[in-house]
C-alpha cells in the first residue's frame, strides 16, 4: 500500500488555532501518512522556539467563557486590557487539567514522526522575522515547493 499524503497550510498564530495543524499532522503521521505543513503569515508563529501564543475573546462570540461570562459580559469588555492575558492563562490551565497536550509536545511528536515543516520565505522576509528564533529542522521555501507535495496529496487542508 502506497503511503497516503496529507498537506496542510497553517495560517493562524493564536493559541486555539495552533492546535488543529499539529493535532492532525501528528495523528496522520501515526496512521502512516506522509505529512507536510506549510506555515505562512501568522502561522509562522507556530515555528518559534519560544511559543508565546495567545487566545483572544475579542471578536470571537463562539468562545465559551468561564462562569457563563459569555451570557452577561458585554462584547466591548473583551477589548479591555488584560482580558487576552486572562483568557490565555485560563485556557492553558483548562487544557492542562483535561490532559490536552501542550503545543510544544505535539510539535515535537510531529518532528519525531518526520512531518516536514516548511516556512514561507516570503512571509519571513515581509515581517523581517529572525529565523534564529525558529526551531531547527524547518525548510524555507515558496508556494511552488508546497504544490510539489500538495499536488500529489490525498488530503489538502487550509487552516
Amino acid at each position, binding site marked *: 500500500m502506497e503511503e497516503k499524503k496529507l498537506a496542510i497550510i497553517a495560517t493562524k498564530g493564536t493559541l486555539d488555532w495552533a492546535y488543529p495543524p499539529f*493535532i492532525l499532522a*501528528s*495523528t496522520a503521521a*501515526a*496512521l*502512516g501518512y506522509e505529512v507536510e505543513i506549510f506555515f505562512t503569515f501568522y502561522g509562522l508563529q507556530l515555528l518559534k522556539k519560544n511559543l508565546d501564543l495567545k487566545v483572544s475573546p475579542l471578536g470571537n462570540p463562539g468562545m465559551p467563557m468561564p462562569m457563563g461570562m459569555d451570557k452577561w459580559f458585554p462584547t466591548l469588555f473583551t477589548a479591555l486590557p488584560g482580558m487576552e492575558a486572562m483568557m490565555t492563562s485560563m485556557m492553558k490551565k483548562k487544557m492542562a487539567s*483535561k*490532559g*490536552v*497536550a501542550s503545543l510544544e509536545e505535539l510539535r515535537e*511528536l510531529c518532528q519525531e514522526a518526520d512531518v516536514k515543516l516548511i516556512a514561507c520565505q516570503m512571509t519571513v522576509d515581509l515581517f523581517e522575522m529572525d529565523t534564529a528564533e525558529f526551531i531547527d529542522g524547518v525548510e524555507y521555501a515558496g508556494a511552488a515547493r508546497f504544490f510539489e507535495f500538495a499536488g500529489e496529496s490525498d488530503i489538502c487542508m487550509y487552516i
Partner: protein
Amino acid sequence: MADFDEELDASGLNCPLPILRAKKALAGMDSGKVLRIVATDPGSVKDFEAFAKQTGNELMESGEEGGKFTFLIKKA
C-alpha cells in the same frame, strides 16, 4: 482479558495523545506482540478502532473496566 507483552497507561491523556503514545510503543515492539492500552478518553474507543483499521495492527479486544477503557492491539 487475554495475555499481553507490554502495557501503556494513557489515563488522563486526551486526543490525540493515546494514539500517538500507542504508535510509539508499537514501534518498539516485534511483529505479533500484543500491547495493552488503558485510557480514560471516551473518544479513544472509536479512535483505536480507526487506528487499527488504518495501520493494519489488529484490535483484538476493546473493553471497559471501572470507568477506564482497555484495548489489546497486536502488532502487524
